[in-house]
């Protein structure tokens, strides 16, 4: 079954720039997909449309049965609760501890305190940070901070995990650690992962599905794809 369906989608920004032209995609539940392309290729726009930060100008984006384009501003939270999002810059709250940062996501949606505790500890265990629950973000390395943000993204057990350049700020070694964590989440929790990146090594090593975008056009969508330089 397809978790995501993108049909004839076009995205034109208000300043006249067209980021995506007539895009069609179907992504299966449980898959691990890389979105690659140079800057301006539209990969960030695609990710943003999946969590309704941007609305498509034309066409239809369906995520987990929700028609994203037709979703009213007031109802966007319903979509957001179905997915987790990880950014390049972690987006953690500096004043809160690791535990509190992850728990924050559940507090915001009104979970019970006991449930929060169980889920947060499980998520932190999954990313390998169980021994750092009481640290503050500025006491952690970049890789660890990114793992906190992954824990926050998966704590509510979403069907879909969107990652926008999660390894962009990390060195190759830490990047591979992150990729291992993501791969485990994909395998153990069955979470569908879509990750925008321009890290060639990672893409080539992971051998997952690859969507290649260039100047807003879909170049190809391969199983076990590789990073192809001519596409960039």
């Amino acid at each position: 079954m397809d978790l995501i369906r993108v049909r004839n989608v076009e995205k034109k920004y208000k300043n006249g720039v067209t980021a995506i032209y007539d895009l069609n995609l179907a992504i299966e539940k449980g898959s691990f997909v890389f979105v690659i392309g140079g800057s301006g290729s539209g990969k960030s726009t695609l990710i943003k449309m999946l969590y309704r930060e941007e609305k498509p100008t034309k066409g239809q984006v369906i995520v987990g049965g929700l028609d994203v384009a037709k979703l009213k501003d007031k109802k966007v939270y319903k979509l957001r609760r179905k997915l987790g999002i990880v950014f390049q810059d972690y987006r953690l709250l500096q004043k809160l501890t690791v535990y509190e940062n992850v728990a924050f996501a559940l507090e915001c949606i009104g979970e019970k305190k006991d449930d929060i505790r169980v889920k947060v500890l499980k998520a932190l265990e999954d990313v390998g940070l169980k021994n750092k629950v009481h640290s503050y973000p500025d006491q952690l390395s970049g890789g660890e901070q990114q793992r906190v943000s992954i824990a926050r993204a998966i704590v509510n057990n979403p069907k879909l995990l969107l990652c926008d350049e999660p390894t962009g700020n990390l060195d190759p070694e830490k990047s591979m650690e992150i990729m291992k964590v993501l791969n485990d989440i994909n395998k153990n929790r069955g979470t569908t992962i879509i990750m925008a990146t321009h890290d060639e090594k990672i893409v080539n090593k992971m051998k997952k599905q690859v969507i290649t975008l260039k100047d807003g056009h879909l170049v190809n969508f391969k199983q076990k794809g590789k990073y192809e330089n001519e596409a960039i």
Partner: protein
Amino acid sequence: MKLFRMLARSIRDAFKSVIRNFSLSLASISCITITLIIVALAIIASMNVQNFTKEIEKDMTIVVFLDNDTDEEEAKIVENKISKMSNVSKYTFQTKKDVKEKMQQESEVFNTVLETWDDENSPLKDTFQVKVKNIEKIKSTAEQIEKIKNVSVVRYGEGMVDKMVTAFSSIEKVTYGIVIALILVTIFLIINTIKLTISARKREISIMRLVGASNFTIKTPFIIEGMILGMFGSIVPILITMYGYTAFYKHFNGYLFSELIKLIVPEPFIYQTSLAILGIGILVGMIGSASAVRKYLKI
């Protein structure tokens, strides 16, 4: 249960935010305080004006003087006609003799002068004191009475009292204007205060939105914060109303300048006014923060 939990969280966050941004909160609380003090004074002033305008209106009487040679029977006819007028609520009749006695009682000078007149050539006249139902129609009623046969002169409090009432009612309108303007200024100030606290928490809000917090969850703490600011801001104005007005009332023994201007008795007036001020404070805080937060909820 879930709603209750979210609400408790909102209230906790709101208090935290007030304390965390203490100097900013203090600034807007003092702005609200000053505004509400003026609002309180305006409410007290306008309520008092309204009160004594009503008192004066209640006192307004048409005095009907009959011709000197009117006999009892003719007076009866006049009485009959007055009693049939639709705007007349009450009337009393005083003969020359009654008037004389009354005046003699009032002052020594009158007493000695009036002594010299006997009933036959007294310059005093028989009078009717007429009260009307609708004060605005007092003029036409007076004119109607004047047309009745044997009525010589009709007087009602057209002069000074009339002017005073119009003057005070325009003062009342001006105070309403000032109160509305001040409330608008306060709302504007609260919008800005809350905007500052929001921009300090922009990051937090953006993360809340990403993890799927509903607008209600994001908005409520800020709206409660505005209400708390409004509540704190109304403390001093309420104290001023409660103790200030009572002291003011006692100092002037319930009358201002003359017995004509009667002040409103403090109880329960001060409680009603305080409640109104608290209500205005909370409402103003709520409106201000609601409009400040709206901009940040667009996704």
